[in-house]
C-alpha cells in the first residue's frame, strides 16, 4: 500500500505499512537521518519534527495520519534562522544527538512568539520538554533568550 508524505515541500510516495512511524519512514526510506531515534515511546523528543509547524514526536506518529500534512525536518531548516544562529553562537551541542529535536522545538516556540514578546521563562520551561542526557539545558535556554534578543523581524 502506498503512502504519500509531504516532507520539506517535496512529495514522496512510499510503499510502507501505514502503521510505520514517520521516524522510520524518514530514516530508513528517505535517508533523512537528522531525525533521531532514542526512546521510541514519545518520551524524549529526539525524533521531533514539525508537522504543520507543530513539534511532533515522529516515533509515535504513524504515516497513515499524515496524508495532508506538511512535514519539516532538520535538514530543510534555514541556516540563517535566528534559532540556528543562536545555537551556533552559543555552541549549544555537546554530543549533539538530541539537538535536531531541541532546535525544531525551539523553532516552533520562536515562530509562535515571533510577533509577540519574548516568551517567559515559564513558557520556555513548559515548551522545551526535549531530554538531553549531556545536560545542554543551560545553553539551550541561553540560545533561546539570545534569539529573541536579536530582532525577530529580521528573521
Amino acid at each position, binding site marked *: 500500500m502506498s503512502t504519500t508524505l509531504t516532507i520539506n515541500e517535496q512529495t514522496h510516495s512510499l510503499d510502507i505499512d501505514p502503521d510505520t512511524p514517520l521516524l522510520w519512514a524518514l530514516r530508513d526510506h528517505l535517508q533523512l537521518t537528522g531525525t533521531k531515534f532514542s526512546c521510541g515511546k514519545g518520551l524524549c523528543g529526539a525524533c521531533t519534527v514539525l508537522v504543520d509547524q507543530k513539534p511532533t514526536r515522529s516515533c509515535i506518529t504513524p504515516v497513515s495520519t499524515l496524508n495532508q500534512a506538511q512535514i519539516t525536518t532538520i535538514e530543510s531548516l534555514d541556516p540563517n534562522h535566528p534559532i540556528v544562529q543562536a545555537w551556533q553562537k552559543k555552541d549549544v551541542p555537546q554530543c549533539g544527538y538530541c539537538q535536531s529535536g531541541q532546535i525544531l522545538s525551539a523553532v516552533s516556540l520562536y515562530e509562535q512568539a515571533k510577533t509577540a514578546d519574548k516568551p517567559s521563562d515559564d513558557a520556555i520551561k513548559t515548551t522545551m520538554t526535549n531530554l538531553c542526557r549531556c545536560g545542554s*539545558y543551560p545553553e539551550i535556554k541561553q540560545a533561546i533568550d539570545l534569539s529573541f534578543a536579536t530582532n525577530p523581524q529580521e528573521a
Partner: protein
Amino acid sequence: MKALMQSKPTPSNAVEEIGPENPSRRALLRAGLIASGGLLFGFQLPLARKARAASDADAQQTSNFPVQGWLQLTEQNEVVLIVPVSEMGQGSQAALAMIMADEMGADYPRIQVKTPLNDPMYNNPMFGMQLTGGSTAVRAWWEPLSKVGATLRAMLCQAAAEQWGVAPQDCDARENRVIERHNHRQIDFAELLPTLTQQTAPADPPLRHPSEYQYIGRPMPRVDTPAKLNGQAQFGIDVQLPGLLTATLAQAPVFGGDIETYDEAAAKSVKGVKAVVELPGAIAVVADGYWPAKKGLEKLNPQFSVGAMPELNNTQIEARLQAGLNKDGETVIESSQSASGQVSETIQADYYAPYLAHTPMEPMNATAHVTDSHCEVWAPTQNQTQSVQAAADASLLQPDQVTLHTTYLGGGFGRRAYVDYVTQAVLLSTEMQAPVKLIWSREEDVQHDFYRPAALARFDVDLDADGYPLAWRNKVVTDSVMADFTGGSDTMIDSAMTEGLGDQAYQIANLSLKAVRENFSVPIGFWRSVGHSFTGFFLEGMVNELAHRQQIDPFAYRRQLLKDDARMHGVLDQLEALSGWQKPAADGIGRGMACVESFGSLAGQVVEAHLEDKQIVVDRVYCVIDCGRVVNPEIVRRQVSSAVIYGLTAALQSEIHFESGRVQESNFDDYPMLTLAQTPDIDVEIVASEQAPGGYGEPGLPPVAPALAGAILSLTGQPVRRLPIKI
C-alpha cells in the same frame, strides 16, 4: 579481551621500533602524496631524532591507509587534522584541534577534523590502547600532539626559509602560512608542499611559549558544532550502505540466560523481515528496516532460560552488601601514627549508592560488513582496541583484517567503552552475508547496560572533644569494574572500589581503609567518574555530617582537616566567595557543599535547594574547578555543568532495581533524567592555574550529590546516607 589492558602490546598492536637507518612500513615520518593531492603526515610517537623524507614506496603505501597519519595539508591550503579520540560530546575534538593548530600554526577556524580508523598509533598514551575515557583526552594528548605540531611547524619554516634564503628562526607559521618576521613575506602552506618532503624533521623542535598561543586558553567555537545543527553529523545509527539490512534484538532478561524457544514463522510473517538469528544470550530479527524488525521481534515471543541469578532482587543485594561489612576484606590503607588526644565519642554511619544505568541518548548500535577476507565496522565507540578484537573474534578473521570507522557518539559516559554491540553486529553480518546495522531499543539499553555497581560503606570515626577525627575506619563493599573489564578473578579488588577514600586530601592520623568484593553477576562498568561517583558521596557526606554535629561551618571544618593542601584551600576560598557563603542563606533555602579531587583535578561545589510538598527543588549550583592549564575554558565550563546535571539526575532520580534477576526499569519514564525545567542555575568558575592539565569531563560529578545531601541536612537536620535522595 583479557590482555588488552596490560601494558605489554599484543602481537596485533605491537609498535615496531624503527629508526631512520632501518626504514620500513612504519616510518618515523611519513609524508606522502595522497590521491586527493596534498601531503599526509604521520609521525611515529615518540618522535625520533631524524625523520625520513617520503620515498616512492611510501607514497604508494599511503593509498592503503587513506585517513591515517596525524594531519593532511591539501593543495587548497587546508589543514585536515586526524584527532585520535572519540567525540561523544566532551569537546575533545575541538580541544585537541586547538592544541595542534596553535603549535603548527594552522588557522583553527578553517581546520577540518577527522576521526581515524583503528591503528595502534592512536593508542591513548595513558592506557596503551585506543580508548577514550577517564577524562584523559587533553591530559594524554597535549604533549604528543604538540610535538607533532612543533615538528611540522619547524619543517614548514625550514622549507620557506630555504626558498627565501633566510634563517628558519626568522620564520613562524600562523593561519596556514609561513611568515618571515623581518620582511613580512608570507607563503601559504600549500605552496611549500613540493619541497616539504625534502626537509629533515628536527630532533627536538621547541614548543611554543604559551604567550604565543592564538587559541589555547580562549573559548574558541567547537569544530563539531555546524554539523550538529543541520542533521549532517553522522552518528553510528545514521550509517548508510548499499544493501544494508537492519536488525534489532531481545537479550536474555536474566543475565547469563540463553534463548530457548521462539516463533520464527510469526516473526517472518511480518513484511520486510528477512531472518531470525540466534546470538549468544540473545535473538535478533533482521529486516529491511527498523520498524519491520521491531514488529517481527514483537511476534517472535522469545523465551529465555534463567541465568546465573534468577532470584536476584534489591533486598538480596543490600543484605549481601550488609553482610560484606562483617568480612575482613582487603586492607587498602592502614596508617596508624599514634594520635594524641582522648576519644570523646565514636560515630558510626553506613552509606549506600545504588546500581545505575548510563542511558546515552543514542541507543547502542553498530554496523558491520563481513566478507571472506575483511570485516568493516562502523561504530559509535569509546573503545577502538576492543572493538577490533571483538570484530576479529566474531568474524573469525585477524585483527589486521578489521577496519573500524568511529562515528560521532550520541553520548558515551563510559557505556561505550564496552563493545557488546560490535560483537553482535559482526555476528549478524557474518550470518546474513550482507551489511547489517544493529539497533537496540531503549528498553534493551536500560536492561542490558554495564551498570555502575551498587556500593555500601561504613565509617567508624573516633572524634576528639572538638569534633575532629582522631581515627577513621572505613570499609567499602562493592563489585569490581576493573575485574569485569579485564577478565580479572572473582576475588580481585581494584582501586576504583575505594578511589578517593584513602588518597583524599584530608590528613587523618589513623586511617584504616578496607575493601570487600561482592560479585553479583550483574554486568558492571565505568560510569561517569567511576568509583568517585559513590566514594565522593560517602566521604563528603560523612564530613558534612561530622561538621553538622559539631555545628562547625563545613568550609571551616574542611580547612582544619586539609592542613596544608594549598590547591584545595584555593578551591575552597574561591568557592566560598563565588557562592556568597558568608551571607546567610535565604529563608527556606538549604545549602551544602563538598569538594573532591578526581582525574587530576579538584572540584568544589555549593548546592542551594529547598523543599516543596516534600519534593526537593535544586535552585542553584556553584562550582569551582582547578583542572590545571586549560585549553578551552568554555568547553571546561560545559563539561562541569554537564557533569553536575548528570550527577543531579542520579542523586535525585536514578536507581536500577532487580526483581527475579530482571532489571525493572526500561525507558525514560521509569528511569528519568532531569529536564530543562528541573535544571538549576549553574555557575562555574575555573581556577587560573599553571599546573599540569587535569581532566574535566568527570570531576564535576562527584561533589554534587554530597553537596545536595548537605543542603538537605541543613534543612531537615537529618543526614542523607542513601542515593537517590528521598525525603
